[in-house]
């Protein structure tokens, strides 16, 4: 009501905040838009997301079923099978499109876990001085030095090969990098005057972290997220190749495992080997490009370069 009557003169704090947010989003988008590689990344990702969404509508899940495969075995590309068939007579194109689903889901969900843990630990370890902060910092450092692959392998062996477990394994092995970046940013935010003002006004730890530190850390986390997705997808591919992926699902990594385990190389079945790897490269590259473009948006120092 007050907003309506006061017209342009008076705006509620919320309205001002929203106007400011809109302005900052549009200026960020302006910077992002100028980077051709970032836009290329977005287009590639959009393509793969569409593929992942529509593939069940085109090919029923029974096309992946080993016992219902109808095609010739290890046939090179033809009109009926644009990317040839695998050792069981399944269409490689169908496998690839269905594989996009698992690879993307694992990449995104694992990153979500990793981001939540990384951000929480990072902010807390930067904000709390004393025992909690030091303890969390140590914990981050410890996880940082444990080599990823052995830890993931052991965890995957322990938890068992299901989709959720693969997501959890990748999520809880990839957060320390984020935590470290977030912690550094939290420390630098903590030294700024407005946080001191908030403290002087009696803001509690929770309020400070949620309303002042978190908004300042978020852009950095966002840029880091896209880079983490890239790593997570590569990790999924590697785990699946080692036979630790979800055993009942087709992913790009599991196709590559099939190629390796079933003499695809010695038979020269390039149509079976090339496409899944190419998809991984494209998607990971796309996430990397978007992440780099976002880093430029977030970090003005990188703009002149």
């Amino acid at each position, binding site marked *: 009501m007050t907003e309506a009557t006061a017209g342009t003169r008076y705006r509620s704090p919320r309205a001002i905040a929203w106007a400011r947010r809109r302005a900052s989003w549009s200026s960020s988008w302006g910077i992002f838009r100028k980077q051709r590689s970032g836009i290329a990344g977005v287009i590639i990702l959009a393509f793969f997301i569409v593929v992942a969404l529509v593939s069940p509508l085109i090919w029923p899940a029974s096309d992946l079923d080993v016992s219902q495969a109808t095609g010739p075995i290890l046939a090179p590309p033809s009109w009926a099978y644009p990317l040839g068939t695998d050792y069981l007579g399944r269409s490689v194109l169908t496998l690839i499109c269905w594989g996009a689903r698992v690879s993307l889901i694992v990449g995104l969900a694992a990153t979500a876990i990793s981001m939540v843990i990384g951000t929480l630990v990072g902010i807390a370890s930067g904000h709390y001085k004393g025992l909690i902060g030091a303890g969390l910092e140590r914990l981050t450092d410890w996880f940082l030095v444990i080599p990823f692959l052995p830890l993931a392998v052991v965890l995957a062996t322990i938890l068992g090969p299901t989709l959720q477990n693969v997501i959890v394994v990748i999520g809880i092995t990839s957060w320390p990098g984020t935590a470290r970046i977030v912690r550094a940013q939290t420390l630098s935010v903590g030294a700024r005057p407005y946080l001191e003002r908030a403290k002087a006004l009696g803001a509690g730890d929770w309020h400070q972290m949620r309303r002042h530190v978190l908004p300042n850390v978020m852009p950095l986390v966002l840029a880091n997220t896209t880079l983490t997705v890239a790593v997570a997808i590569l990790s999924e591919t590697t785990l699946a190749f080692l036979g630790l992926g979800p055993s009942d699902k087709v992913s790009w990594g599991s196709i590559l495992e099939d190629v390796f385990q079933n003499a695809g*190389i010695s038979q020269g079945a390039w149509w079976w080997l090339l496409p899944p*790897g190419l998809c991984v490269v494209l998607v990971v590259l796309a996430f990397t490009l978007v992440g780099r473009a976002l880093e430029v948006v977030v970090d003005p120092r990188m703009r002149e370069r």
Partner: protein
Amino acid sequence: MSSIIPADVEPPPSPEAPVRRRQRGKGESLGRYSVRRILTGLGTTVFVVVVNFFLFHMLPGDPLTNYTRGRNVDQNQIRELRKAYTGPLWVQFKHYIRNPFSSHIDSAQFSQPVWKVIGDHVWPTLLLVGTATVLSTIFGLLIGIKAGWRRGSRFDKWSTGSTLVLYAMPEFWLGMMLLILFSTGLGPLPGLFPSGGVHNPELSQSSPAGVLSILFHLALPCATLTLIYLAEYSLVMRASVLEEKSQDYLQTARAKGLRDKLVRRRHAVPNALLPSITLIFLNLGFIISGAVTIETVFSWPGLGELTYEAIRGPDVPLLQALFLLFSVAVIASNVAADIVVASVDPRTRS
């Protein structure tokens, strides 16, 4: 600590805190820093040792049955297994912690002490990953320097583009692609290289022909690893050359009349090398964990392939020892990286 500072210089009301802060500000001596760094490294090792115990005790199933299923296990081993895997958790932990680095339990697949099995597999890994590390460091740094110095040039665009693609590549896929191209042979390409192994078993390893055969077998896996590692080095080097390029001291060097080449070689590159040195030392730790997937693809009998076999088993005692070895290698190289960087750049100590 307070005895180092003479009391009459500055009588602080509470001696502990200010003294410590002043020492930090000046930067500690290298020896002191190294000792502190090694101690934190040992702390991390303790953490890893403890994790190694609990991680593997979460494995489902009864370890005794898992281990002895379908195999002949001698009485001595069974006694060791009982000690390690029965009783309350803390008793097991006490048994483990007494000697975490020399497991009394044999590898399930090899029926030999795990450290002997590991010892047998170390050399191929060092040969393969060591060679690839040296090659990729040299080429990666050179590419990074050239690309960063001429930013936006055609060379920069191409090299940055291709390193990003290499960075996005699952390394075992690249290995399999090289295998199908150069070992199986595709179309007009003949299969030139061997598909796996270290050497031709018919030749003696020390004869000239045997050495050639080893090099021949090394070519493809080593090329794969070099390409994959190279990406990281060149990206990091490019970024740090860019960082240095805008510094004032380079302007000074140019104003002195130095040629562009000398400005780069004598002034920019030495300063830009710091992040790369850190990276090189950090990666030393990963030499030992090798390349699990690459060794698997090329049937290279190193620690990586051993890990793969241990996973497939699963051969728990072997996996446990490998996990410990890899972690300790990474921790050691982390400590080494920090100390080397601190000795090169005193700023990091303050």
